């Protein structure tokens, strides 16, 4: 007879229902899987056979056909092992098929019949709940992740025998207890501004950048502390809201890097791809259209250490996500959109040898003008356009390093940042953007009005520093954020003046 089990598959971050039909007939022994299965799905039959036998069920040779509908979409992953096994047991009447259609079933089988964790449970559950499905049977290891979907009734199953007993109403399994999201409030990366001595200029820049969602470049000699500063950024970012946490967790879940014990990403991601990262690993794509680093950094920070060392073409691909907050990954048959709204933080040396501008006679720069220009030129103009703050990070003197003087902690800075974000949220409620950095020219015109004194100062700065048109745009956005940090409704001349300190200093940039 035929048994049908509901399961779910993922296309990017969206799930779609898959019907797993199992038919067993008398005839020559065979086990065929049809409906565009990929390698891992085809191999399911071997796992299913062992799991069924080791769970003390009967797997006598029969002619078995498994069909997965819709038949024209390629099925990936190992989450169909469990529905296929249950379908087989129901088809051979070893278990009752009465309750089969109540559940959506997901899970990979181990040879001993236990269920292993799968990727993408959260996005599948969210899609399925939206599509009207209520009850789920999933591996026990994925229970924590599923617990945050409060609309779903989730049954965590340890192995095939338990599942069979449950479906046959022999034992009862209690549904997973729902959990309520609360931001961890803790700093997962262990970095805190209070451990950074001195560096007041850079710290102030971090505060402004995070407050306004501005992208940032830290430029300084090797060993000046650029990476340490960058690692402090998540610690001053506001807590993730539930919606943000869900968005980020979905991506991490699909990528299979979610910690099953946590079940949810509660701190903002801080992604640091190495500079040898390939285009696909940064942006996403490849044969399985997986999410790239830009998406894994969604709602968090993408930190590119030594930015000019990255492949130039790879860097250029950052332009779309920086512009749109999403990245479209296209493969043969379909294209998938992953969210990718992140704060870009880059660090770089001032020159290839890293010593340019050093006053230390032991660290003299040996680079020529052209070498320096070429090095800095590896970051293209259009990319620089998306970066609002340029900060020089200089080394700390020894006595400053050992100075026990109290430094402000990340928590204190975070309070101010959160207040500035609130101001922006209220201002942009009708504009569909979140932060000052996202303002369009029209919005800048509307929200960055200058009084006479500021206008005069901007004009003077324009001619004095030879600013470009885009330089002025950047300056205005940053000035708006500085005003928001002071909770000022209008931009003051001092805000514009401070913003000037964080403009691109090297003349290469403005040319």
């Amino acid at each position, binding site marked *: 007879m035929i048994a049908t089990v509901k399961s779910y598959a993922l296309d990017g971050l969206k799930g779609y229902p898959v019907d797993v039909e199992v038919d067993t007939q008398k005839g020559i022994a065979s086990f065929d899987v049809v409906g565009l299965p990929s390698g891992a799905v085809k191999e399911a039959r071997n796992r299913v056979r062992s799991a069924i036998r080791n769970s003390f069920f009967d797997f006598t040779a029969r002619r078995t056909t498994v069909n997965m509908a819709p038949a024209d979409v390629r099925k990936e992953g190992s989450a169909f092992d469990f529905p296929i096994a249950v379908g087989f047991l129901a088809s051979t009447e070893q278990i009752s098929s009465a309750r089969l259609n109540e559940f959506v079933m997901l899970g990979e089988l181990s040879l001993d019949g236990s269920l292993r964790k799968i990727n993408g449970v959260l996005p599948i559950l969210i899609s399925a709940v939206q599509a009207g499905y209520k009850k789920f049977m999933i591996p026990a290891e994925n229970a924590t992740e599923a617990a945050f979907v409060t609309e779903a009734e989730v049954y965590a199953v340890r192995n095939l025998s338990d599942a069979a007993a449950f479906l046959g109403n022999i034992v009862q399994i209690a549904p997973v207890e729902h959990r309520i999201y609360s931001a961890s409030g803790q700093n997962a990366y262990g970095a805190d501004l209070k451990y950074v001595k001195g560096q007041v200029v850079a710290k102030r820049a971090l505060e402004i950048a995070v407050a306004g969602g501005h992208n940032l470049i830290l430029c300084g000699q090797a060993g000046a502390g650029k990476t340490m500063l960058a690692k402090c950024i998540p610690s001053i970012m506001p807590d993730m809201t539930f919606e943000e946490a869900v968005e980020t967790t979905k991506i991490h879940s699909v990528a299979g890097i979610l910690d099953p014990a946590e079940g949810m990403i509660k701190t903002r991601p801080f992604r640091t791809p190495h500079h040898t990262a390939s285009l696909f690993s940064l942006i996403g794509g490849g044969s399985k259209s997986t999410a790239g680093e830009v998406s894994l950094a969604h709602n968090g920070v993408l930190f590119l250490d030594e930015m000019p060392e990255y492949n130039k073409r790879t860097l250029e691909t950052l332009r779309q996500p920086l512009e749109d907050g999403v990245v479209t990954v296209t493969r043969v048959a379909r294209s998938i959109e992953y969210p990718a709204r992140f704060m870009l933080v880059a660090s770089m040396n001032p020159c290839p040898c890293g010593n340019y501008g050093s006053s230390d006679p032991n660290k003299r720069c040996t680079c020529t003008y052209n070498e320096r220009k070429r090095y800095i030129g590896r970051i293209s103009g259009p990319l620089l356009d998306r970066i609002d703050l340029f900060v020089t990070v200089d080394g700390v003197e020894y006595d400053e390093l050992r100075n026990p003087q109290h430094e402000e902690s990340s928590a204190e800075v975070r309070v101010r940042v959160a207040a500035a974000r609130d101001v922006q949220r209220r201002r942009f409620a009708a504009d569909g953007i979140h932060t000052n950095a996202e303002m369009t020219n029209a919005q800048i015109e509307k929200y960055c009005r200058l009084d006479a004194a500021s206008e005069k100062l901007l004009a003077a700065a324009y001619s*004095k520093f030879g600013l470009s048109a885009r330089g002025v745009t950047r300056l205005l956005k940053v000035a708006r954020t500085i005003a928001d940090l002071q909770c000022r409704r209008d931009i003051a001349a001092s805000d514009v003046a401070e913003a000037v300190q964080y403009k691109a200093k090297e003349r290469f940039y403005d040319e």
Partner: protein
Amino acid sequence: MNSSDAFIKAVIWLQTAAGLGSGTLNRILTLSRSAVERIPSDPAGSYAVVKSAAGERTAQKVSAAPTDDDTYRRALNIIAVKDIKVVCRGDADYPEALEHIDNPPPVLYTIGDKSLMKSRCIAVVGSRSPTRQGEKAAHSFSEVLAKCSLTIVSGLARGIDAAAHRAALEAGGKTIAVLATGVDRVYPAENRALYEEVAAKGLLVSEYPPGTDAKAYRFPERNRIVSGISEAVLIPEAREKSGALITADCAIKQGKELFVVPSAVYSEHGRGSNRLLKELQGAMVLSPDDILESLGLYSAPAEAASVMELDVDEEKIMIRLGLGNAHFEELLALTGLKVSELNALLTGMEIKGLIYKAENNCYGVY
């Protein structure tokens, strides 16, 4: 009187096809003009004539040269296309001053206002990687000198040279760039905009035929012309082994005035110019007026310096920076301001032109 086309072509042919340098070419040019004009059409037949003027080896070289040559044709072509004016020794346009130096350039290729070569010129040369002070000196000295109708001569190089040319152009004055490449070439390429501007408002000049590439040995050779057409040479800043020191040597040999701006005692960037000062103590200048006075020119009356109102914090910062560059955090401790306030204050001071932002979050005063 200026040279005929045939004569000019003969000179170019001798430079390109026969590959003669300025020394041998000068000797050949002692021949009558008609004799010179005949050489390219019959190199072998000119053996005896050339030998009489320039010796046997040169005569062999010339007689073996092809009558038609790629570099020769290319030079002629560029001269026609780019409207390059050629001035030979003995022409009315040839600057008198160059006749008096060792090994005068036998021919000058020019783009722009060639009458400038006969104006009162002063060379401003120095380091290609100057400090801010050096660049500032080059700029402000050149500006004043150009306003007093001196023509600023330099080499279109990066750093001091470019600053001097720019200052002259910005002041509405005149400037000459003496190139070590063909006059049609821009070296270094980043100075293209400056090159175009000098061509339009000043003069580009080179002794090398058009199409000549940059070669290291041509730069010191070129320097004798820089000092040669000038009355005096000003060195705002020069490193230990700077090409500007070669220009200074030429100037001394040619009997020109030499002016040097002193640098800080431990400055790497000013070691060459400071050493020069030690040898020639009279060369030291502290302001453009020192130069004008020594050249017998009066400075244009200086604009009354506006007295700038400084507030307490600005005053404190100015006094501190007077002692040398200071880091942001030091100024923060000094003034007791908040980071945001100090940022704003420093920007204001930068805009007023009181201070500048140096490397590594340090600030300095001009």
